[in-house]
């Protein structure tokens, strides 16, 4: 059977295993409160729920991912040759990431691009954390509910403007003829316009700007649930403000911080708009490489492989960081 068709069997196997486990467990334990699934929901609703959830988890989430992974292990083939004898399992696409096809040797171009992308994402994450933490703390601890809701609304409104337009607005600001350069030259700070876009400042600012809110909310939620009395107690005991944060607030808010950082990191690494519009000409963004494989070269297999590499590296980094700071995955999702 072709490897592609095999993908469809995997979910069926998993579901069958759990179903059997459940049946056995319920036969052995007699729980007085348990009602059967169809008893609880009625036949029509019961079937409707299952169909909806199955369609989503299988056809919109699970199978496409598995399918893409399988595709990444195939060579690039025109539609006529798919399914034919040339359609074999191969790791050529992954190899092409490490070994360049054009020059003999390591594919430094792509590898360094991945490194650059990851590096920028980490910096942006750290940047956003520093920017958002004070405000999150202020809103969570100091605010009256009316004020907090107003601040929330002020935070959300800019994000209703599309990310493309936001990147566009930043480009206007940072361009050679843009407002910031105008102000700098007018104030005598510099004689020539600073090439913010060329030196990648625009990129960092754009990514940071795009995902401020994503850092803001988990931070706010985490700090908000901290009992204010603990901070009062620490203050009473004479702790200076930086110790209060280091010893009381941050350890408590660790899951929220981890959650915010994870999301900003992953969104930043997978971002397309900001790098496209705000990056310098010499910069190569890894996700843009994937985009090109798809739309310039029509090499879907290679695009899929690179996408999977990006995902794997990001997840590995995130898990490493979580382990390092002793946060469990379950806590962050909350």
């Amino acid at each position, binding site marked *: 059977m072709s490897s592609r068709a095999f993908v469809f069997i995997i979910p069926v196997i998993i579901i069958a295993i759990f179903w059997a486990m459940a049946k056995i467990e319920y036969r052995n334990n007699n729980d007085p409160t348990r009602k059967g699934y169809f008893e609880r929901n*009625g036949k029509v609703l019961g079937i409707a729920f299952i169909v909806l959830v199955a369609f989503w988890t299988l056809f919109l989430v699970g199978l496409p991912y598995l*399918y893409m992974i399988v595709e990444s292990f195939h060579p690039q083939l025109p539609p006529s040759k798919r399914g034919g004898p040339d359609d074999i399992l191969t790791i050529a696409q992954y190899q092409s990431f490490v070994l360049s096809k054009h020059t003999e040797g390591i594919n430094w171009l792509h590898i360094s691009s991945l490194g650059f992308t990851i590096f920028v994402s980490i910096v942006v994450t750290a940047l956003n954390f520093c920017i958002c933490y004070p405000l999150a703390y202020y809103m969570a601890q100091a605010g009256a509910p009316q004020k907090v809701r107003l601040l929330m609304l002020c935070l959300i409104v800019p994000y209703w403007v599309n990310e493309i337009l936001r990147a566009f607005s930043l480009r206007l600001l940072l361009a050679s003829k843009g407002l910031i350069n105008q102000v700098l030259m007018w104030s005598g700070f510099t004689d020539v316009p600073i090439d913010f876009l060329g030196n990648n400042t625009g990129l960092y600012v754009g990514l940071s700007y795009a995902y401020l809110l994503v850092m803001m909310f988990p931070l706010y939620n985490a700090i908000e649930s901290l009992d204010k009395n603990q901070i009062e107690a620490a203050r009473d005991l004479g702790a200076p403000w930086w110790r209060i944060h280091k010893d009381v607030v941050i350890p408590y808010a660790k899951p929220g911080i981890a959650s915010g950082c994870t999301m900003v990191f992953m969104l930043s690494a997978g971002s*397309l708009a900001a790098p496209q519009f705000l990056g310098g000409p010499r910069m190569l963004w890894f996700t843009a490489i994937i985009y090109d494989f798809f739309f310039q070269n029509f090499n*879907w297999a290679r695009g899929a492989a690179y996408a999977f590499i990006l995902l794997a590296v990001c997840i590995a980094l995130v898990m490493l960081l979580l382990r390092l700071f002793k946060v469990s995955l379950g806590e962050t999702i909350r």
Partner: protein
Amino acid sequence: MNSKSVMRGMIAFYIVLFFLYLFGPLLVMSVTAFNTPSYPQAYPFEGFTLDWFVKLWNHRAMMDGLKNSVIIGIGVVAIAVPVGLAAAIIMNQIYHRARSLYYLVTISPLLTPGVIIGISTVIFWKDVLGVTDFTKEVFYKGIILTIFGQASFVSAYCLLIFMARLTRFDRSQEEAALDLGASYPQVFWHILLPFLKPAVVSAIVIGFLSSFENYNTTTFAILADKTLVTVLAGEVRQGTNPALSALAVIIIGISLAGAIVFEVLKRREQQKADRAQREAVMAERQEAVA
């Protein structure tokens, strides 16, 4: 100046800076929408004009894109809201050992880069729909693929919204309804859904907005078609044009209007609840006297 007022001053300064960072670029862009130069310019302000708004209205591709965005948005919400609701209900009923895997699978679209969702959607459905010529002709379209791709993570948003609302549901109401003779489907329609109505509204609004402004996934899945956002991206890539600023102004205007409406509705709801509370207190007092 004691340390407390210094601290307060610093905090105020920081907040001002923060919101300047947040709103600054948008304000500047809004100004350029009304400024005459064809290169978006905020300063100097050469002349007030609404030309750019007119140009926007006449922009054929953008209007087409707008239409598609709305269609896709409706399609996504039509799928994601029922799916999210079903998934939330099943979350509580699923075999407990399978729950972690179930949760992981349903939340994963939120953490997956949009690029991957887009790619996997196209690759998967191209083959699945390519099984017969009929399905390929009719269904392998950018709009449908985009709906599928976006629905994967919008459903996850809806799932979270419904789960949050469900945790506040008083199970004893369900039991009371059963005890009075309702069947389980009747409990669902009479008791659970009315309770979930606010969540349904949130899910629809958030789902539609998320779909409308999505770029990463859409850009892959839309194939040959366009949405407003992809047209926008194309325009920005080619250069700058104050018509884009005009679009931004319109969007900001709609958002502000939406925010005001939301605030008004919230106030009204609060007033109603307060009034009911007062009635109850009065009734309690009368009872104590009797």
